[in-house]
Each structure stands twice: as structure tokens, then as C-alpha cells.
């Protein structure tokens, strides 16, 4: 995951962590140990025995790193959002003025629109692509293992490199790679990143290209959980491929899809590197997203306070999104 920003970027990173790491509390409660085996601590009790410290001891190194490199900078970012940041002269308290200027800025409003389009389009696209890749490449065969690794490559390639490569692929004259291919079919040359009407869609295509294989891996993991017997039984009952997919695979993958959507949506809202490398937010601001706007404000205009306010808002949005998804998932799981 790329972290382009200093303190203001880190606040958005934390929410992802919150989403990726399964919360042990909820899961453990679902499978309660048999009565009498473990003595329950009284509710709300504050007594710690020596043994109750042991797990914390193991967690401590990671926790310490998280506090120093994530939570503290994040808190600092939230704090800065209430100040006119002047590193040398001393910060001035401005209350909610930074938030007001974010909400009042038409460029932020446009960027929000682009971000939502990119996040929704990229999420849906990459989930669908990931799903079909997973269906195609599921199985224990050695050749499939190779294919899966090959398909996964975009995920482990640095986003900046991916961006530069796509810049070349998208080269907007007939000499460009994609345009040469289209030329064989008698189409084009298309403008891709060069035109306000097509730039956002071209960026979205890159996001889907990189996000799809990542989702594939998660879906693959989900597919291994599906009971093979169900397929056989359905086949015996005369169900065709589509019916098996619709009535067995998809319902079984429901929890996986929820996680996928949460992760992909958060990734979508935090998109930065793809846009920054591919278009820098242009042409004419047509691909400007929330994060590139924050970057411009913070590091080109030196308005760290306003940039922090915008980053805090993004953080709140991702937290809300995560909580809403979790709540939705719980409700679904509660209803059989």
C-alpha cells in the first residue's frame, strides 16, 4: 500500500487496518467454550492476573510500532486540522475554519464526485473481474498455480510503475500500444488520458486492472470453503452451470463479497498514486480525486491545516463505511 502523505495520509491508513484485521472478540464469542472449562471473568471486572498480561506482552511490540507510526501521527493530523499551520511561527487555532473551507471549495466538491465515481466503478469492476478470474483459475492443477501467480503480478508491482506503464500503453496517438491494437480493428486513435471525457474512465480501467487480481485471491480462498458435495448434488438434480453458480457459489461467497466490497471501497476512496502518476488530476481537473486535492493543498500550497481537515474527513468516511459494512454483514449473518 502506498503512503504518499506524511501525517495527513496516515490517518486514512488506519481505517484499512481496522477493516483488514478480523476482530477476535466477535468471532470467539460465536464459538463459546463449553461451560465449566474456562472460568468467566466477572463482567466489567478490572482485576488482572499475571497470566492475563501475557497476551498483551506478545502484542506489545506490534502495538508500540502501531502507536508510534500510525496512531500518534494520525492523532497529530486530526489536531492540525483545527489550526492554521505555521511550522516556524507557531500554529494558530482556527476552530472549524479549515473544515468550512474544505466544504466551500468547489474543487473539493468536484474531486468528491470523481472520487465516488472512481471508487464505485473501480470497486464493482474489480470485484466482477476478480470473481471471474477466480472461477477461471480455481483448482489444484500446476498450470493454474502458475497462471494465478502471473495474474497476481499487478498487485505486487509498485503502483507508480504500473502508472508509468499504463501511461505508455495509453499513448494518445496511433503510435501508442493500445491504439495500434485498436488500429487493426479500424478503431481510433482514442485519447484516453488526454481528454476530459475519457480520462476518468481510463484511470478507472487501470484501477480495475490492478484491483481485480487482488480480489481474485480472496474469492479463491472463499471458493475452497464451498462444499463440493453441493455441486454434485445439484448436477444430479439437473442444474446447469449458471444455476449452480447462482444458487450455490454466490450464496456461499456472501461473507467474502462483503469483505471484498469493504476493502475495495476503502481502497477506492484512498486512490492517489494511480491518479497522480497517470494524470496528476488533469486534464482540466477531470481526474482530480480527494487525495490528489489533499496533496495539492498540503504540499503545493502549504496549507497543511486545510489538508489535514480534508484527510480527517476522508478518515471519518472510511470509518463510517467500514462500520456500516460490518453492521450489514452481522445483520445478514444473524438472519439465517
Amino acid at each position: 500500500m502506498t503512503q504518499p502523505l506524511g501525517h495527513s495520509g496516515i490517518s486514512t491508513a488506519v481505517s484499512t487496518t481496522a477493516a483488514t484485521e478480523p476482530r477476535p472478540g466477535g468471532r470467539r464469542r460465536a464459538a463459546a467454550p463449553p461451560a465449566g472449562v474456562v472460568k468467566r471473568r466477572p463482567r466489567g471486572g478490572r482485576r488482572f492476573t499475571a497470566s492475563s498480561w501475557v497476551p498483551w506482552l506478545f502484542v506489545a511490540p506490534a502495538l508500540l510500532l502501531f502507536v508510534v507510526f500510525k496512531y500518534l501521527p494520525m492523532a497529530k493530523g486530526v489536531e492540525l486540522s483545527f489550526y492554521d499551520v505555521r511550522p516556524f511561527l507557531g500554529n494558530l487555532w482556527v476552530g472549524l475554519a479549515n473544515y468550512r473551507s474544505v466544504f466551500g471549495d468547489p474543487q473539493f466538491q468536484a474531486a468528491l464526485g470523481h472520487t465516488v465515481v472512481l471508487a464505485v466503478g473501480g470497486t464493482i469492476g474489480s470485484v466482477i473481474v476478480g470473481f471471474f478470474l477466480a472461477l477461471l483459475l480455481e483448482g489444484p492443477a500446476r498450470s493454474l498455480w502458475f497462471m494465478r501467480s502471473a495474474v497476481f503480478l499487478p498487485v505486487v508491482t509498485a503502483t507508480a510503475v504500473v502508472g508509468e506503464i499504463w501511461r505508455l500503453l495509453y499513448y494518445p496517438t496511433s503510435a501508442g500500444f493500445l491504439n495500434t491494437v485498436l488500429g487493426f480493428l479500424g478503431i481510433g486513435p482514442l485519447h484516453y488520458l488526454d481528454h476530459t471525457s475519457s480520462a476518468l474512465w481510463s484511470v478507472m480501467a487501470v484501477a480495475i486492472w490492478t484491483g481485480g487480481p487482488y480480489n481474485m485471491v480472496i474469492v479463491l480462498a472463499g471458493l475452497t470453503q464451498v462444499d463440493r458435495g453441493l455441486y454434485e448434488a445439484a448436477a444430479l438434480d439437473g442444474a446447469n452451470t449458471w444455476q449452480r453458480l447462482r444458487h450455490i457459489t454466490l450464496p456461499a461467497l456472501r461473507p467474502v463479497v462483503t469483505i471484498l466490497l469493504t476493502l475495495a471501497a476503502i481502497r477506492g476512496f484512498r486512490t492517489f498514486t494511480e491518479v497522480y502518476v497517470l494524470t496528476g488530476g488533469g486534464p482540466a481537473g477531470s481526474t482530480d480525486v480527494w487525495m490528489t486535492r489533499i496533496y495539492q493543498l498540503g504540499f503545493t500550497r502549504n496549507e497543511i491545516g486545510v489538508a489535514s481537515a480534508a484527510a480527517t474527513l476522508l478518515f471519518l468516511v472510511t470509518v463510517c463505511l467500514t462500520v456500516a459494512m460490518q453492521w450489514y454483514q452481522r445483520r445478514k449473518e444473524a438472519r439465517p
Partner: protein
Amino acid sequence: MFRHSATTRRLAPLACAALAGSLVAGCGASTSGNGGGDAKGPLEVWTRSDTVDAKAYKRIFAAFTKKTGIKVDYKPVVDFDKLLQQRAASKNLPDVTVNDMGSLGNYQSQGLLQPVDKKAIKGTSDITGTAWSGAVGTDGKIYGIPFSRQAQGMFVRKDWLKKVGMKAPKTWAELLDVAKAFTDKDPDGNGKNDTYGLLVPGSTNNGYLAWFASNFIWQGGGDIVASRGGGKYEAVADSPANVKTVTWLKGLYCSSKVTQPGSLTMTTGDSYPFFTQGKVGISLTGPYEFPLFDKTPGKDKLEVIPAPKGPDGNTVLAEGENVYLMAGSKKSEQQRKLAEFMISPEAQKLGMTAPDAPVVRLSVNTKVDTGKVYNDPRWKIFSDAYANDSKPFPSAINYQPIRQDTAESLNKLFANCGSSVKSGLGELNSTLQQELKSQGVAK
């Protein structure tokens, strides 16, 4: 009930972290380097340079140490402003920096610079008056010492001109004709329609498009913000002259289409390969590109000319670097000595003759003869342009947001061929006026 307790438990560590954050925030900033508060140790000097420029600066500082015995802890910094802000936050700035004269207003408004007493520094009387104009703050005090100056000029492919049977352009109309011929008449003779006339770094990143367009705006008789005296400024972006100029510039994208493809998302770095690899024939830029362009496409294939004349002359952008004495330094004596050395003919010549990149382009010292030092008549184009027809961005105010807003507006106009130049510039003007107001310098 169950859900409530789970949420509380989850939020507790977060709240703790937030609280701890506010308590420890003060100690987050660490101190590093020898600059700022320390009266002993070497003088910490930063320049905004890559490794190539750094070689030239190292030569200068080595000569300084040899002469004065003062040691220099030199750091070339590419991501200059970001790192400087970090050091500002820890209240421990480097002692001396060398950076764009355009940064003066920005730094001064943040209290990062010491005012300069011209009389206390030997050799300042040898510096040209025009050079000093880029070192004055809004309050009329001097905040920098001029180190290098330059103006822009035009690099044109000589071999392409010959191929299409034309001469180097002297006016905007001729520029457009040559650019069209370079685009349409296959000047590289490869049988493909794959060349373009004019190189434009049109990205909004760092306001690139505004750097480029300012030359034309001034040549057209307009301006972006105008000084009204007494440290006050007024936005003048929507003048009739600007409407004409910007309409002409828009034509380069929308009707004649002579710019390189993808221009509106390209920074200077992104765009140069088009010139060096022979896809574009004209580039408007500074003399710092001699080393690069003389290698490819090659010195023998280039003709260097003054910028073609617009309706109101051929004013080009003047730029340059100042030496800044940073606030909070306890080494004022050493700072002064370094400043004196940097403007001396010795250091200026060292900077100009650096083998890979001349970090001093046009000397600010009247005792240095630029033509003699370079022994290359092409430099005269740039020194003449600087002396006679150049104009800097106002350095006293924080010009960066103004450049950014201008670039964003122009980028929008050039990307949407159906857009109205007049209303686009009108909107830009009110944005700029607002920006001047927020800086407290609006007329």
C-alpha cells in the same frame, strides 16, 4: 448491550492513542543536522539540487572552506520545500539555503528568513540592480542575496527548419507557421505523421502550465497580478489583452493542434523526451537545458533564438536563485562570509564553469563577463533577453497559489475547446483577487 460494549472496547484504544497524541505532540519533532540553534560545528547549507547540480555546489563550497577555514555541511535536497517545512516545525532550520527567488515571499511570510543588511556584506555593490529586485519582500526590506539569474529562450530544430524550407520564427504568426509545418510536413522524413511543433509542459502540477504561459501573457501585453505600489497587488488576469493571448494559446490545442500529445498532463520532465527523441521541434525553456539538449538531439541540430515577438514585444520569464540566510541561526558571522563568497567573481565563475550543469547561469556580479566565461555565443541570447526583455514573477508575495490557480484555469480552457476564454479568465481573476486578499496584499 453486547454490541455496545464491543464498540466501546474497540474505541477505547483509539481514544487513548488520540489523547496520548495530543500530549506528546510537542516532542514529535526531532532535531537533526547542525543548523539553527547550534553556534559551533560546520555551517549547514541546503540547495535545491539533484546530484548533477550538487557536484557544482560542492566545488564552490570546497573553495570557500579552503579560503576561510569555515567548514560546510552541504546537503543537496530535491524535495526542498517539504523537508524545509519539517525542519521549520522542529525550529531548527539550516543556516543557509540556495533556492528559487520566487520562494522569497512564501518563506518570508512564514518567518523563515533573516533580513539582509546590504552594507554589512562585502561585494553587494557589484550586484546588478535588476538582480536585487528579486530579493525584496512586501515590506520593502531585502531578504535574499542574488546568486544566479536567467531568462528563457527558444530551442528550434535547425535541421527540421531546413527540411521544411523555413526560417527561425521572429513573431507569433511565424512561430505558428513553423509549428504547423513541423506538425504536418514530416520534418524528420520518416514517412510517418508523428512529429509535433511546440513542446508545452501543460500539467497543473506545481503550476507548470502557468510558467510556460506567462511568457506569452506578457508578450501579449497582459499580466496575471500587477503591483500597485506599497506592497499591494491586484489581479488583472481578465484583461482584454489576456483574452486575446489565451485565445491564441488555446488555438495551439484546439485548432492548429501543434502541441505534443498528452501535453496537458505533462510536467517538464515528462515532456523533454519528446524533444530529445526528435518528436517535437520547438522548446521554450532556460539555458540550463544546454547540457541535455546539446547531447540529444545534438548541438549541431539546434538553433537558439530569442522568444518570438507577440503584440507587445518579446518579454520572457526571468528566474534565478537567491542565497537565503535562514532565521534562528547562531552562526551569523559564518553566514555573512559564505554570502560574500557566493557573490564573488571567483564563486560565480566556479558555478558557471561547472562541467555538467552551470548552477550560476547568468552572473549577478557586474565584474563577471558572461560571454567571456562561457565562450559560447548562444548564451548571449539568454543574457540579452534577461537584460532587455525579461520579467520575474513577483517574488515578494507567495506566488505559488497564484501560479497554481492560473495553471488550473488555463488547463481547463485548453482541455475544453468549447469553453469561453472570457468567462474562464473572469473566474480566475476573482479567485486570484481572493487569494491576494487572504495574503493581506490585495489593493
